[in-house]
């Protein structure tokens, strides 16, 4: 009886040790994916021709936006202001205080508008202005919604390299 109990405690101890290793690894994975860099799958027509319609795997880094180093021309990952559970990829066109002139709906008319970006906000647009739901529709977004900056593409192989 005592021997059986001893065996069970040994098994329990070993399984706890193994579970602890897995938990530590998952924590390391979380910290790397949130604060350093991670691969991301992006798809959709709004960033053609820079990013493909059917999906690209890009490496995105999460350091620049925390240091305030995101600027115009960067492709960024942001949390959609219309649905916080969705992440979208767009290009930063203007920072706070700058004036943006844009075509409101280029497939329908030539009308353009000019807007000043308020403090703490950024203006984002997709490269494919004909098929992009961006700041022209929902207005400038707060900088705090930026989650990361796209660094380079890793898949497909023939598109390898920085964007």
């Amino acid at each position, binding site marked *: 009886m005592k021997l059986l109990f001893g065996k069970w405690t040994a098994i329990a101890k070993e399984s706890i040790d193994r579970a602890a290793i897995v938990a530590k690894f998952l*924590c390391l994975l*979380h*910290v790397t994916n949130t604060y350093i860099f991670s691969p991301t799958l992006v798809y959709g027509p709004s960033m053609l021709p820079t990013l493909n319609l059917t999906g690209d795997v890009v490496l995105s880094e999460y350091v620049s936006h925390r240091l*305030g180093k995101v600027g115009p021309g960067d492709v960024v990952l942001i949390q959609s*202001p219309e649905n*916080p*559970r969705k992440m979208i990829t767009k290009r930063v066109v203007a920072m706070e205080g700058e004036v943006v002139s844009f075509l409101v709906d280029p497939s329908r008319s030539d009308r353009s508008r000019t807007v000043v970006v308020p403090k703490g906000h950024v203006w984002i647009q997709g490269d494919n202005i004909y098929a992009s739901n961006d700041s022209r529709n929902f207005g400038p977004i*707060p900088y*705090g919604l*930026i989650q990361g900056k796209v660094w380079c593409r890793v898949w497909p192989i023939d598109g390898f390299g920085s964007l």
Partner: protein
Amino acid sequence: MKGRRLFTYSGGSVISNSEFIWMGMPNTIMKMFNKSIVFGLVGITVTDRYAGVCPIRGSSMSPTFNPSLESFTDDYVFLEKFCLDKYKFSHGDVVIFSDPTNYKERCVKRIVAMEGDYVSNVNGAVKVPEGHCWVEGDNSAFSSDSRTYGPIPLGLIRGRVTHVIWPPQRMKKVDRRIPQEGFAF
């Protein structure tokens, strides 16, 4: 007991007490370093995903937090981050979010209206758009909130406050309630 023999290795010489401790030092330092890194990683993961503690500064949420200006310490609150999984918030939740006018700062306010609600503001009735919420501080006179910068996207929210945990005489659960004036309809 002078010259206690602690450790002998091949060669026959004796290592004294103090030399033995010095030999073990880098090993202990490595172990401590390892442990602190693991502790840091686990701590960061738990604070990001599950729960955290945060101090409250300012009086925009009086009397719920920091009720008097003469208290010695700020209130510390316990926040939970399980709500960030599905972003299901309700009226009356006290939330901490990144300030839309300055991403480095964080604010704590109460959600007064959710998407689809109409809020009566000085400029008339404003409809809260999809994916946004309207936040106001409990202390209306001293609070810069959605009445200043408009509805905020739900993506800015970093956690929901559930309890006050410091100072000890004010430890309590933070209730969901709608403030009396300026209610949403």
